[in-house]
């Protein structure tokens, strides 16, 4: 059974004059214990999708979906309150820029303690404070922070970015979630810290069988840690498959271009030659092309591309393109 099954999710931004379709019919499914990468350029709607799943978008954004199942339960039929309670129980999210996601005037200890939910506590209410504190310390140990005394008393601005991210992960773990959504967890971090954070996430996945949705703009960086990858472009679904499929046989011209644009993936590239890149840049939300949004930049675009392609499935390797590269392999 799928842990999370989303079909044709759209997110609309309601402005005073018109509405903008920021995310256009994206499907995403996750199995238990899976690590899935969600990859795309900045501005491709990855973070929006994640925030829509967790339900923290404000009222300017309208979310529709054909199907939104969580462990077989249809969340669309539930009221917003019920949906929120189920989601906040089982899904946790860590945001990019951890420093700004921690309350600057509250100590780390207090913020951690309030994330521990009441069901894990036992005994009378006067014992609970102590239990919360102990739970917070245990959580800090879990994410590899040894000096818990110092950390609990600190304010966010007194910690480094990497430590803050660990604290955020600890907070996310407090509910013992089945799914952890990591939205660019290592943005603006040096490589050593990036490695630490990814290793921590990988160990959580292996030891606790926790599913992880890893959002990143850097395809290369996540391949190391993921089983499956979903690629998005400008709010549209592009391609999904196992990491190997995506890396060795990309079906979509966009994925191919993404791979070609990274120097590591094509080592045979002669010295001092130009890297392959797509012309132009990602369209802004106010001026989205119709049909396949890659159209104006796509090397294989033809007249048919003014209509959005349907998703075709080849043994679990899904691609959304009229002229996929499948036949070229």
């Amino acid at each position, binding site marked *: 059974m799928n842990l999370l099954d989303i079909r044709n999710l759209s997110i609309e931004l309601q402005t005073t004059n018109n509405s903008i379709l920021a995310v256009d019919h994206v499907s995403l499914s996750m199995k238990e214990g899976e690590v899935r990468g969600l990859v795309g350029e900045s501005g491709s709607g990855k973070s929006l999708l994640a925030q829509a799943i967790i339900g923290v978008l404000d009222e300017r954004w309208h979310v529709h979906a054909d199907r939104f199942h969580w462990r077989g339960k249809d969340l669309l039929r539930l009221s917003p309150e019920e949906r929120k309670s189920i989601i906040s129980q089982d899904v946790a999210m860590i945001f990019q820029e951890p420093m700004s996601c921690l*309350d600057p*005037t509250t100590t780390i200890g207090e913020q951690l303690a309030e994330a521990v939910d009441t069901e894990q506590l036992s005994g009378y209410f006067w014992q609970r404070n102590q239990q919360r504190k102990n739970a917070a310390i245990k959580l800090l140990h879990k994410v590899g922070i040894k000096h818990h005394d110092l950390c609990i008393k600190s304010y966010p601005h007194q910690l480094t970015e990497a430590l803050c991210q660990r604290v955020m992960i600890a907070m996310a773990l407090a509910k013992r979630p089945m799914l952890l959504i990591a939205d660019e967890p290592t943005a603006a971090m040096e490589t050593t810290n990036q490695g630490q954070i990814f290793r921590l996430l990988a160990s959580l996945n292996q030891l606790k069988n926790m599913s992880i949705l890893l959002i990143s703009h850097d395809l290369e960086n996540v391949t190391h840690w993921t089983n499956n990858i979903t690629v998005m472009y400008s709010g549209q679904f592009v391609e999904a498959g196992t990491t190997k499929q995506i890396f060795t046989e990309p079906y979509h011209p966009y994925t191919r271009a993404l791979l070609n644009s990274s120097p590591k993936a094509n080592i045979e590239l002669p010295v001092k030659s130009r890297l392959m890149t797509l012309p132009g840049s990602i369209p802004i939300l106010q001026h989205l092309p119709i049909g396949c949004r890659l159209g104006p930049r796509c090397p294989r675009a033809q007249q048919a591309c003014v209509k959005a392609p349907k998703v075709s499935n080849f043994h679990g390797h899904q691609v959304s393109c009229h002229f996929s590269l499948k036949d070229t392999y």
Partner: protein
Amino acid sequence: MLIFTLRRINLLLITVLLLTLVSFSLNFLFPGDPLVNMSGRINPTPDQLLILSDQYQHNANYFIQYWTYLQHIFKGELGVSMASHLPISSEIINLLPATIELSMTALIIAMCLGIPIGFIAAISHKKITDNIILTIAMLGYSIPVFWLALLAILVFSIQLNWLPSAGQISLLYEIKHVTGIQFIDIMLSESEYKWQAFQNASSHILLPACVVALAPGALFIRLARTAMMDVLETSYIRAAKAKGLSFLQIIYRHAIRNALINVIRHVGLQFANLITLAMVTEVIFNWPGIGRWLIESIYQRDYTAIQAGLLVLSSFIFIVHILTDFIYAALNPLARDTKHGA
């Protein structure tokens, strides 16, 4: 925190020093003999003039004159009033507490009502509550204080006869002057009519304090509303939502404190404004405070009183300013310790 305290005290000292410099130079800028302006003794005989010029080192250079002036101030000798011939320091000690009482009560009323109402407006943003609150705040901020005071007297004192229109306390009650702040004096007195006196004093202060509080209160509503709306947009509130906290929990634990920080900063700045309003109100409500005395001194061209009164009032405003800085630091850990590299 120690460094923070030292820096604030340093700031206080330097500002007070600058204020004395201003009031010292006022003696020379006002019309008349600087010596007369400084001491307040009008029409001195040549003998008195000699004694005065010796006291204030009038024949030495300006620096020594200023130094002597400072010594006089720190000894508490602010000269005598040109109008009443009473020592100004004793007048100020008599009058300043009443102003402190009025302005502090007004400040507390403005903060206790304005800030929570502003928060409510921010939480119900774009709804009808928000619009109503904003309209009232706009109205409250634009009403001139003297007109409001007259209107309040007309309605609440004369027509409805609910509250007294003038003075600090009814003449029936005899309260000994100890600290000067009426409520503390009442508590200290051993009269058997203590509680009646207390009630009477509260009914006297209610109307002027509310009049003074209206404009700053309306401003606090707007400040609190913007601060709260800014905080509710931040990513840590979104993260707290993702943590599964309820809306009320988010407001109580994270939003209020962060929004308060931004409001408290402005309270200190607004206090100067509030004192100005209090001075006008004191005249209308016949409140025996320093503001009314200062305005009367201006009418009477009592230069000694003007410069001493300005010095004392501005020091008081500045002390309150520093106090709000401390409250700000207590709420905001970022302001407390010295940042490295920033």
